[in-house]
């Protein structure tokens, strides 16, 4: 089994430990990992702001890069970026049959990280260990476009030392929404506060997600409001060589 790693731009530049965790987990499971080095970004920021032409430009580059490799799957540690490629590339290429076909073909092979582990590799227990009381935040694209709800939770329940708690308003968006977070900052922050209130009520000391973008937004607000909640991507918790 050989997979190509699609590391979102903010994983590449801000949270590389997430990508590292993914690689280590996959290798532990005997999967060969390649990383197409010419990849940059899926184009979602332009797309979300309505700049479809610009998004198409970036998307074509993405398609070029990933079509140039041989792999069984493309694995992405972000529900939102996996959705962009698998779900919205055909959307923006709706009237361009050639590109649409390329994106549909590629799209079938793009899998979000937890989805890949549980549904492709059939693995739910990685023998991982992490002390803490955690809540899991499902990113909106992951929930609605990909329908991946239980997979991360199955994986977390098998992490020894980790207590997975329920929390209120679980299905509410965290308020990131890409450029929304700076275009409508008061609303975005209020939405984060709603989630943080639920987090406090749950008694969790750890926040986990499969989307670093959501985590960046929530962690930014948690820190600013004096919380010392640990904020981690699923891959960091499952990483067999974390802390070293």
């Amino acid at each position, binding site marked *: 089994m050989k997979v190509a790693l699609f*590391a979102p*731009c903010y*994983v*590449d*530049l*801000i*949270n*590389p430990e997430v*990508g*590292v965790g993914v*690689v280590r987990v996959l290798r532990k499971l005997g999967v060969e990992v390649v*990383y197409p*080095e*010419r990849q*940059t*970004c899926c*184009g979602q*920021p*332009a797309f*979300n*702001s*309505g*700049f*479809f032409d*610009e*998004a198409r*430009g*970036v998307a074509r*580059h993405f398609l070029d890069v990933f079509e140039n490799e041989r792999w069984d799957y493309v694995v992405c540690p972000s529900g939102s970026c996996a959705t962009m490629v698998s779900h919205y590339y055909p*959307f923006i290429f709706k009237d361009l049959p050639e590109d649409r076909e390329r994106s549909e073909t590629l799209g079938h092979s793009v899998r979000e990280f937890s989805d890949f582990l549980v549904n492709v590799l059939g693995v739910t227990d990685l023998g991982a260990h992490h002390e803490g009381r955690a809540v899991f935040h499902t990113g*909106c694209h992951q929930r*609605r*476009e990909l329908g991946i709800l239980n997979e991360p939770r199955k994986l977390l329940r098998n992490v020894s030392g980790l207590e997975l708690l329920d929390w209120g308003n679980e299905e*509410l*968006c965290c*308020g*990131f*929404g*890409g450029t*929304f*977070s*700076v*275009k*409508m*900052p*008061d*609303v*975005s*922050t*209020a*939405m*984060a506060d*709603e989630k943080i209130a639920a987090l406090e009520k749950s008694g969790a000391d750890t926040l986990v997600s499969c989307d670093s973008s959501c985590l*960046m*937004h929530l*962690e*930014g*607000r948690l*820190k*600013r409001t004096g919380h010392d909640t640990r904020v981690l991507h699923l891959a960091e918790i499952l990483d067999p060589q974390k802390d070293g």
Partner: protein
Amino acid sequence: MTTSKPARQHDTEDRRREGIKSNVEGFNERSRKAIGDRQLHDAVALASKNLIEGRNKVLGALPDAPELRERAYRIKQETMANLDRYLEQMADAVEARGGNVFFARDGEDAIRYVADLARRKGARIIAKSKSMATEEIELNRRLEEDYADLDLEIVETDLGEWIAQLAGETPSHIVGPILHMSRQRVADILSSVAGEKLPPNVEELTKFARKRLREKFLAAEIGMTGANFGVAETGTVVTVTNEGNGRLVTSVPPVHVVVMGIEKLVPKFEDLSTFVQLLSRSGTGQKITVYTNFITGPRAEGELDGAEELHLILLDNGRSKLLGTEFEEALYCIRCGACLNVCPVYRQTGGHTYGSTYSGPIGAVITPLLKGDKEAKDLPHASSLCGACSEACPVGIPLHDLLLKLRNRQVEEGLAGRAQSVAFKGFENTMRSPALYRISGKAGRLAQKPLEKDGSIRPLPGPLSGWTNTRDLPPLAPKSFRELWKEGLKDG
């Protein structure tokens, strides 16, 4: 100058205005007031929670709900594809039953028709049951102002709508118009009408409202409703209420006027089965509302109540523009309000922040479509695109995708502004060039050095200040993933 009679004292004057009501520009700026209002937030949160729980229970218990949803979509799709034919059929059916039909191109047309009718009938009071279409065209206020010589009193009879009207406020939720008001506020408003102090007790306030509005039902010459659905096959108009005012205004006054958006049509009577099941289950968590009323023409021969005259006003007001376009699905809406209940943005801002008759996700979609992008420029951006609305919609309207398309439309129309266009062009160029992308990363790491403090970026002015005003911003990592890969991760 002859002496004139003093102006008739009206209980209610409609001072409500559609459109951006506050002087504050921008959705985010207007949201601040709502965000700071703890009472509003708690009211919206509680209402949403109850409505969602109710909806999940009764819709979840319907075994064929998924099929109903798809069927609802297809019925609406078929209706829009042949709307001219169905409108003709509807008009013929209504006229065959003795009703009158008027085709109103816009609000002005509709209001003029009502004014002429009121004049002919010598009407002084119009008793209204809730109709969003009439609010959209500001019927009440324009009748009062532009046709002041008619001295019409137009009374909203839905409890919440009446109270909002008295307060000069617009409703803030499709289903719960005065979600934003405390009971004390309601008591104050009704006390000033009663001329005595009423306690903030729901039962007492309701009793007063019932008594007061009863007088209007019995005195009104014209009863006015909207329509939840119109059946082309039979000419039937369907209204759905819980209070009973919808049935009262169509049973007591001698004239019944229906203002119906043209998109409310369904082809056949049996199609109602799908929609009646979906509407209240989705919107209020009820299996059915207290009054589901089917009106086909004026009263029958021998009936002693029911309207003697029925006037159906079919309102376009911009809807036809959407037919056959990528935005047509916005017309499939049945106004259940489910999207408002699940919207995380609406949860924080309430309805008034949207500054339009229609708020929440459907409001953000339909307002720019009916009123044009310039007037409602912010609304497509008042969303994090989470998709909860599309998930909740019982007709399967892809609301969050429509918001995206509206953003794209703004870009194509040149409304996005120069700074953004330049920025995203730059973004595209950077992301199409691995070399440029890597250089930007390295440059960013250099540039951030003086700004880093305790592991995060110190608050910045400019576009990112929106973020750093309230949230910490993480710095770029000392080594990118790609660098780590090349420096050793690649080989294990």
